[in-house]
């Protein structure tokens, strides 16, 4: 059952590649709708994106270490228990770690509350995306960032203001306003739930996040530059970037199915019988 569950998720990238291969003939056959002169690279941020391991770190720890450490104020550093750490976004609650190996056939329970989102909504993963794909739709009044692994961010372009400080309950996606500078989308976010920030940073509802989303001249990659500003937390603005690869036209968003009622969602490896 566990394998079946994994199989569904792991099969997905393979299928996407297959899909690309199947799409290939449509551009090679003369006379198809795509047989036209090459046009300018697509500089729109609309599309499907997946975070790229730019430095070839090869694992999550390596990726995290590429983020320059945040320069915290002494008060903030004391509050988080010392120097810069590697805090990420809010987690989903891990299970207790056993002190002794489980017997054969007894699964390790690694998530007590799988699929649950009891806090303040989705969207945290889209502030600092993980390896799940993100999908962006651009409209003149609003840009939407949707995550394959849950969460939606609404970025308003219709000149509405942020809500007055303290008038809204902080949420994981915050409240975001956007505007374009050339082809780059500049996003201003406040009202985030308190938590960690990549590079050992912190955030509160008062912390301001500025993002710049810009597609490379060849249209193939997008860089999101994050700048966190909060004089109570940072000695200077905390800045770092993520790079994303554009998926080909015709790609589609995967469904991240998770059934909280299925006990299998709580567990990880089931130890097999061991040789004596």
């Amino acid at each position, binding site marked *: 059952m566990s394998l079946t569950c994994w199989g569904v998720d*792991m099969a997905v990238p393979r299928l996407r*590649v297959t899909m690309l291969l199947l799409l290939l003939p449509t551009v090679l056959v003369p006379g198809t709708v795509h047989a036209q002169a090459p*046009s300018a690279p697509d500089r729109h941020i609309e599309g499907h994106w997946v975070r790229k391991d730019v430095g070839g770190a090869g694992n999550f720890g390596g990726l995290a270490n590429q983020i320059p450490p945040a320069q915290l104020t002494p008060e903030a550093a004391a509050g988080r228990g010392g120097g810069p750490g590697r805090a990420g976004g809010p987690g989903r609650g891990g299970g207790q770690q056993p002190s002794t190996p489980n017997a054969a056939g007894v699964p390790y329970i690694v998530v007590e509350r799988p699929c649950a989102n*009891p806090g303040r909504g989705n969207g945290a993963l889209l502030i600092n995306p993980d*390896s799940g794909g993100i999908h962006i739709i651009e409209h003149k009044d609003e840009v939407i960032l949707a995550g394959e692994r849950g969460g939606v961010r609404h970025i308003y372009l219709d000149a509405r203001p942020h809500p007055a400080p303290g008038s809204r309950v902080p*949420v*994981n996606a915050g409240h975001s306003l956007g505007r374009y500078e050339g082809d780059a989308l500049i996003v201003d976010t406040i009202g985030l739930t308190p938590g960690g920030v990549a590079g050992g940073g912190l955030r509160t509802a008062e912390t301001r996040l500025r993002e710049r989303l810009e597609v490379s001249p060849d249209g193939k990659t997008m860089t999101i530059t994050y700048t966190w500003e909060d004089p109570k937390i940072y000695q200077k603005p905390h800045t770092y970037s993520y790079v994303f*690869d554009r998926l080909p036209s015709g790609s589609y968003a995967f*469904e991240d199915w998770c059934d909280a009622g299925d006990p299998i969602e709580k*567990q990880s490896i089931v130890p097999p019988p061991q040789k004596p």
Partner: protein
Amino acid sequence: MRGLKAGHMRSYRVAAIVLGAGIAALFSYVASAQTRETAGTPASRDLSGFWELSFDSRRVPDANLLSAVTRAVRAERAKRDAYAIRWCNLLGMPFVMDSGRPLDIRQGRTAVIIVPENASGPRYLYLDRSTHIGEEIFDPTAYGDSIAHWEGDTLVADTIGFHPDRGITTIPGGGHRSATSHLVERYRLLQGGQVLSVVFTWTDPKVFRTPHTYEFRYYRLPADYEPRTWLPCDPFDDGRGQFLEGPAPRAGAGGK
């Protein structure tokens, strides 16, 4: 598990991306040079906005069901739906189109995204391809694979690839979504863009005797409406679980 899962997925994904990028380079010229925004889209062909169903929004005739859809089948489906609600599952089609809260619909160049206000994910109607992903590739989902095109001022969305069990499968008027379901939706703005009509037509050789058509009319909310992004659905809320799974309500129970 999440971390492990993500880690394994990532390695596959990176491989897919590398390969994908190579292939993409071959047909990068496919990308058309269009404007970034949808500003040039005629108002009658921009469905974007915040849309709400009201008390008078639904016109749903009874479906003409096959005899195979027995009372027992319907009861089983109702039980599954209750389970999906109980465990905060992804809602899926068609329930997401009537989930009780406004929808944020945004129309981009390549897709229309339909975002509900709850823990369920968004739905996409793809405008940038005219054929469905092949069934040998596409893993069935609660939303299916939706492609859409314009016929005059009507956006016609075509959806197949439904998962037979995930989420809430009951269809308004009777019947249920299955692996053989085919849905055609016709989106059209009415009354100067203040009303969005969506006519749904389901066909399914295993469920409906004749195509089942119903219509929802959504009312446009003010442009500065702010959707809730935090509506929680906590499957591990004990009180909620007891309410949804407890004994049937009875007189004098007081909701205990």
